[in-house]
């Protein structure tokens, strides 16, 4: 199927680089930040970078499957965040902190 000219004004590669860049920010954030909430936000950033990538591939192929996948990711990410926030609240009640570094009860 023919890709509309409006979409072609920005080359696909730019989307790929941008999404990869966002994804890398997310990965680095998960690895170096100590606050559980920030880590959660970085995971969300990773997922949304993937969403952007799916949407741009989908637009450049005129193929709706990629955008359908994005809906699935959004729903699952919402479920994941609700569970994650519940876990963080539960820990906060016990520890009065959301610092990941304080979690050291389990070590070998």
């Amino acid at each position, binding site marked *: 199927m023919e890709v509309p000219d409006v979409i072609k004004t920005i080359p696909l590669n730019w989307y790929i680089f941008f999404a990869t860049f966002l*994804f890398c920010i997310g*990965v680095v954030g*998960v690895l170096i930040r100590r606050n559980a909430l920030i880590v*959660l936000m970085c*995971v969300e950033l990773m997922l949304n970078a993937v969403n952007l990538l799916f949407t741009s*591939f989908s637009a450049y192929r005129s193929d709706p499957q990629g955008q359908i996948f994005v809906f*699935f990711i959004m729903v*699952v990410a919402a479920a994941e965040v609700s569970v*994650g926030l519940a876990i963080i609240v539960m820990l906060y009640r016990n520890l009065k902190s959301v610092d990941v570094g304080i979690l050291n009860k389990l070590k070998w």
Partner: protein
Amino acid sequence: MLPIIVLSISGIVTLFLGFLKSRWILMPLTLLFILAAIVGVLLDKNGISPYAGAFPTMLSTDNVSIAFSGIILLAALFIVPLSRYYANQENAQPAEYYAILLFSLVGALMMTSYENLIMLFVGLEILSISMYILTGSDKDNLRSGEAALKYFLMGSFATGILLFGVALVYGATGGFDLHMIANYVRNSGNISPMLYLGLSIMLIGILFKLSIAPFHFWTPDVYDGAPSVFTAFMSTIVKTAGFAALYKILSVSFSDLYGFWWVCLAITTIATLIIGNITAVYQTSFKRMLAYSSISHAGYLLMAVTTFNAYSQKAIIFYSLAYALSTITAFGVLIIVEQTANDKYEAFNGLGKRAPLLAFVNTVAMCSLAGMPLTAGFIGKFFVFTSAADNDMVWIMIIAILMSAVGFYYYFRVIIAMYMRPAIESDVDNEVVVPGIYRTVLMLATLLTILFGLAPDLLTALF
């Protein structure tokens, strides 16, 4: 398809059953629902289920997926009765636990029979999100909460990585259907480098979930902190479903790229075998040892995936079943011993005199995990090693055999503690009570372990 529908509906029904005053009815009903799902699998197998061929581009059943579904449901059938102590606690909400268990089985079954990467993702997430909740279900216990947070952060990180890989594969091939990807790989003359990158990143995501070294670091903490019942669930059902998914995607979509991915998997296999077995030696807690043991068994299973020949399918299925049976037995014994003392090795001292039955089933389970002849674990290892030998992967095999020799040391430590050490003074007065339902489950699992060890053909004839 039918078992997925049955389990989803029964999960919702179980949630409403939480309103009932009589809690005791929940466990028998959950078992009944799982049995109904097993019947559903059998109907699907024979093609008489009304949904047998529905949505063929999303989910499909073949002999392999049915075998994996069978193992998963059988393991669930054995694990649910073990939740007795846990679900009877004062502030427990058993209806929710059982409902989430049933929902997580839906995810596991989807992972065994997907035909489309969307279904893989949805199944994986249903399973993982349920496990995050169950890991943290012991709300007042700090260890459980910590395990839940670690599992959640690492799990969703892995999901993000997996999705990035899927996105790149989609960019290269233009589809999520497994056969469509396979067609692209087979027919396009020059494969886009994006596909190789996407496949590697996807593998990293899946290996993360399967706790393969070097992505295993979360496993011991999570398995140690979670309530023992759910640790048993994680180390059997999640592992089996994960390996089913990994084997399916590699065999259906990427079998033509074997030359590319076998190297990555071979390296991680060796790392997993060495790290899992060597670190297990240094543990002082039985539960943590089982966590490392589950890492090392993931290594043996990955070895069978790596060899990828006519034997490997049989090897993976048999090994998963043998491993699931003996791990469930070990955790069943651990749950009872935990009630009297703690999860350290010393808690097992003198168990041979205090509770001969427990000591016996645990001995059989340890022998099977270590790979002693006459148990199912030995046959499983034999199949795995045969499939490696058939591919001339002698060096992997030598490392695996050396590492299973290391395994004997830490598994037999428990047996020695049970039969040769006197019980600790403070524990002697605590009587070890084995409830009837535990006895049934443990005996049955032990019986199957020995039966499949003596006559593996009974099982291999089925698929």
